[in-house]
């Protein structure tokens, strides 16, 4: 069944059309939706797109940065306010994919994709939905409801810029060098207060249907100095409570085996 394309000039109109339809998908950069079209995905029959260039805006206000859902990975890399996220955006795809793939689209990427979203999860981002009343939801809530078919249009995401840039770390593990799909990605936000981790946020990509918190790791690190003993304890519970997927890249068993090793490498790496 061929698809229909509806193009809107205003975000609100696109949001209304999207929420009114059960069989529509919103087109960002095309790396997810056009791939589905090429594969004759029958789960949708309408593509909704919007021409409003403001969807691509990146705005900094104080220590918060709001990234338009239509901003591409290349836009993130080029933006000085987002230097802390540039290594994450660089880990996504090759140059052509980075010119297309959007921040908003990454929120919908099925495992093993979605490395950028794992970073947003570690940073405690807010996902701003367009609609009659625009509203922000915690990224955890957004991801929990994502696959239930709630057709809301993501307008932007807001992240707090880390006060100490070295408190945020990101690692993507892939078998193909220099670029391959994730075996897993790990994002950690570990602010220190008086030499101890205060408010640890650690997230994995490709370790569940959506990016997930490593709750046991966060618990193991919180209130501890980031020393060898604490890192060892965190690595020991790297996959506690998680159910990593088996896919073409790695089995669930393999992901469990190596998660602690990669987590340890990320946490012991020299601070940038």
């Amino acid at each position: 069944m061929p698809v229909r394309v509806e193009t809107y000039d205003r975000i609100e109109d696109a949001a209304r059309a999207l929420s009114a339809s059960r069989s529509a998908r919103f087109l960002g950069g095309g790396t997810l939706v056009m791939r589905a079209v090429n594969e004759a995905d029958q789960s949708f029959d309408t593509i909704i797109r919007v021409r409003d260039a403001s969807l691509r805006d990146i705005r900094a206000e104080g220590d918060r940065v709001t990234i338009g859902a239509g901003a591409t990975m290349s836009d993130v890399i080029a933006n000085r306010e987002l230097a802390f996220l540039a290594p994450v955006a660089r880990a996504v795809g090759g140059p052509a994919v980075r010119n297309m793939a959007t921040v908003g689209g990454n929120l919908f990427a099925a495992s093993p994709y979605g490395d950028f979203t794992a970073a947003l999860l570690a940073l405690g981002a807010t996902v701003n939905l367009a609609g009659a009343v625009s509203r922000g939801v915690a990224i955890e809530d957004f991801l929990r409801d994502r696959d239930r078919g709630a057709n809301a249009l993501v307008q932007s995401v807001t992240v707090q810029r880390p006060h100490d840039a070295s408190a945020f770390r990101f690692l993507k593990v892939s078998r193909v060098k220099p670029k391959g799909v994730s075996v897993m990605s790990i994002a950690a936000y570990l602010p220190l207060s008086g030499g101890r981790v205060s408010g640890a946020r650690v997230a994995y990509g490709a370790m569940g249907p959506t990016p997930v918190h490593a709750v046991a790791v966060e618990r193991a690190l919180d209130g501890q100095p980031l020393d060898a003993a604490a890192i060892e304890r965190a690595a020991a519970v790297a996959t506690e409570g998680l159910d990593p997927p088996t896919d073409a890249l790695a089995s669930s068993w393999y992901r469990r085996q190596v998660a602690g090793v990669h987590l340890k490498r990320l946490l012991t790496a020299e601070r940038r």
Partner: protein
Amino acid sequence: MAKKPLHFRLNGAEKAVFVDEGQNLLDVLRRGVGDLTPKYGCGQGACGTCTVLVDGEPHLSCLTLAEAVEGRRITTTGGLAQGNQLHPLQTAFMENFAAQCGYCTPGMLMAAKALLDRNPSPTRQEVVEAISGNICRCTGYEPIINAILEAAKSRGARQYG
């Protein structure tokens, strides 16, 4: 299903075509306006052989909704040579045996052109990064990397196009 009119510039020439809803740019280039240089590989964004430049930046044409390029500049491998004069990248690919089966070549050339347009004297690592979204199953990449580096070097002698 209604056709939609689409205007864009292809390698400097104005094009006006009717496209199907949901049709991708690669299909329009190949079947709509007859430029057979970009290839269909995976349809998923993994292989890179459909890479074309949109306003000078590399994009995957098989994942680009055709009607979204209204008014934009598209460059393909078909636009590299000037008459009988091959582009320095094409010459360097020939001289370095950078094409075996040749299926990845149009994507490699466009990824390389995007790199050299922005960065005329790249390091080897920058070349590797620039073609990291393009898969080659024949050459092992070394001849391609060498060709791109050589094209960058030869650029001083000839005006790079």
